[in-house]
């Protein structure tokens, strides 16, 4: 398979572009996606290829254009709605949670909502608390949604193509901090199925579970821990709803130890859910209580040192892993 190295943002663009060539029902709408070429240059050049009827600049009106997308999806189109940041999806919460998520159920199976909402999720870099939302904890609470969180360019492309083809509403969580990340992406067509985690590192001492950007911190931590003789299974969940709990359980049965790394607040987070389900299904296999590494439970601070302290990082992950392997290693 021929591959080349491209940026995360290019991987996203390729996914959208290829799908739009394949299916004329797909359109992209969001703030600055067309003439400005994307606030983060994800949609660069797409206006030129597809024209203003399919690459559509929206005013700063998230509730309005999220709802527009949902109405269009019910009618039979396949909208991609870009949020400049998932932080701004909060003003569209009613549309995305009530209408997108529940339409199929409320209509007794008559109208689904094949739509993708996508954009930056999580702390960008000193943006302060209003602009640094991680929405996976909030939104994964709602049935009817699927939530994908890629950690690298390869996954960004493969998962986004799957999201666009999926007949259900998919929340696709990217990260401003990863858009410039580079990685190998095949020239050939591929998709990545939802609900199937991938093992990024293999080891028998601890299961490290993560999704999205912190997967990269987990891999850094795993590399360093290996020098201390601690080998981690690093599971990248790729989607949190569905959540590949089977992969987690299989790993925990091998390592008997679990650390979950999640870039949102700890209270009722995805980490909480992973740990709960693990206890429900593999309690007897745990040799140590599971540990979670979340952000600190405070609004996101501005000051650089405070923000760094607040986010999950390699150091915190290493400390957490060492706390669960204890003296037995």
């Amino acid at each position, binding site marked *: 398979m021929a591959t080349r190295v491209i940026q995360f943002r290019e991987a996203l663009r390729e996914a959208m572009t290829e799908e739009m060539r394949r299916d004329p029902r797909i359109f992209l709408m969001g703030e600055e996606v067309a003439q400005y070429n994307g606030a983060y240059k994800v949609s660069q050049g797409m206006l030129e290829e597809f024209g203003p009827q399919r690459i559509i600049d929206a*005013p700063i009106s998230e509730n309005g254009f999220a709802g527009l997308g949902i*109405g269009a999806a*019910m*009618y039979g189109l396949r909208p991609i709605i870009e949020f400049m940041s998932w932080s701004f999806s909060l003003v569209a919460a009613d549309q995305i949670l009530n209408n997108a998520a529940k339409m199929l159920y409320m209509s007794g199976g008559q109208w689904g909502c*094949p739509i993708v909402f996508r954009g930056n999720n999580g702390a960008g870099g000193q943006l302060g608390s209003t602009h640094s939302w991680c929405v996976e904890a909030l939104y994964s609470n709602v049935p009817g949604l699927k939530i994908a969180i890629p950690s690298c360019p390869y996954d960004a492309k493969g998962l986004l193509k799957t999201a666009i083809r999926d007949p259900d509403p998919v929340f696709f969580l990217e990260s401003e901090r990863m858009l410039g990340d580079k990685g190998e992406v095949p020239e050939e067509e591929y998709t990545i199925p939802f*609900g199937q985690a991938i093992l990024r590192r293999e080891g028998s001492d601890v299961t490290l579970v993560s999704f999205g950007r912190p997967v990269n911190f987990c891999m850094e931590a795993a590399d360093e821990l290996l020098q201390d003789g601690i080998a981690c299974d690093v599971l990248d969940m790729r989607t949190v709803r569905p959540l590949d709990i089977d992969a987690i359980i299989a790993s925990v049965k091998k390592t008997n130890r679990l650390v979950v790394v999640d870039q949102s607040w700890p209270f009722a987070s995805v980490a909480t859910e992973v740990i709960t389900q693990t206890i429900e299904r593999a309690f007897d296999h745990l040799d140590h209580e599971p540990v979670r590494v979340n952000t600190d439970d405070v609004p996101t601070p501005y000051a650089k040192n405070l923000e760094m302290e607040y986010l999950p990082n390699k150091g915190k992950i290493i400390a957490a892993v060492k706390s669960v392997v204890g003296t037995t290693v």
Partner: protein
Amino acid sequence: MTSMPASAAPSPASGKSKYTLSAKLPDATLHKWLRDLMLIREFELKTMAAYQQAKIGGFCHIYIGQEAVVVGTFGAVNHDDPVVTAYRDHGHALARGMSARACMAEMFGKAAGCAKGKGGSMHMFDKPNWLFGGHGIVGAQTALGTGLAFAARYEYEVLKTGPKKVCLSYMGDGALNQGCFHEAQNLAGLYSLPVIFIVENNGYSMGTSIERGTTMAHNLCLKAAGYGIDAIQIDGMDVMSLYDQFKPFADKCRAEQRPGFVDLKTYRYQGHSMSDPQKYRTKEEVAKFQERDTIMTLSNYLLNERKSLSEAEYQKIQADVRDEVKDSVEFSENAPVPELSELYTDVYAEPMPNLSPSGEYTHGAKNPLL
């Protein structure tokens, strides 16, 4: 640009009629309108009775008094024009062609309901009749209406697979004050989308009179003007004059693929919902509107002025709608409740493993309307 109804026939009515376009409609159309009005009225009376017997649960909003709105506006558009509305939606469902059985069974929480008992009174959906719901969150459906219009225009212009359509997006006067509606109007104006926002202005949102809830209540059209949307005020108590004004307006929105706004003055005779002591208005006020009741006005016209309908035929319509509604209640009472397994169906169009820790989602039983 306005187009005359394809079936326009020479008017059999007297030249003195105050009606214009509607007077030229065939007798059969006007008789069907009368039947629809009477069906909704009768349906709602029996809905109230069933609610009082606790056979219907939840919130339930009665349409009596506003029937002319749906019959007159639907009469002016095509069957495949998309429609979306708020929670006071039984009239929309029936006038769009949903069977009384499917509508009543939904409220009874039965599997034969239009949403298999998963939606209830406020959430009537009917795909074969292009009714994209009943929606419970005040104002939220207006953005969907904009999206339906966007998609219809896209289908016409980009996919080139459909005709020019116009979406009817209904709302109460209370929804005028929701941010969503203002965003929906701005987008509709900006993108020039063929959606008509029809404000069913019955003067109240629950107990709040319109003057107490919105600015410029005496001239709502000014609000739409700010979004570059053509607007008209229409008296909604007389179905024929309503049609006379609405038809050319809707035709223009369709032809020019532009949005519209209609301040449709109407009135609900019953309380806001089934639990409303109605302290905020007088009996005299209600009586004043009932004097202009649309069923009375239309039946008078057909019986006495146009003379297209005989007293016996009128009685027959009355008996027919009574039978139809009675049948819908009996049907709903005897219909089976949804299987418990339906709890986990229709959550996802494509269920997959591990979507939930509480159970596996599956595909649902086929919707009875499909």
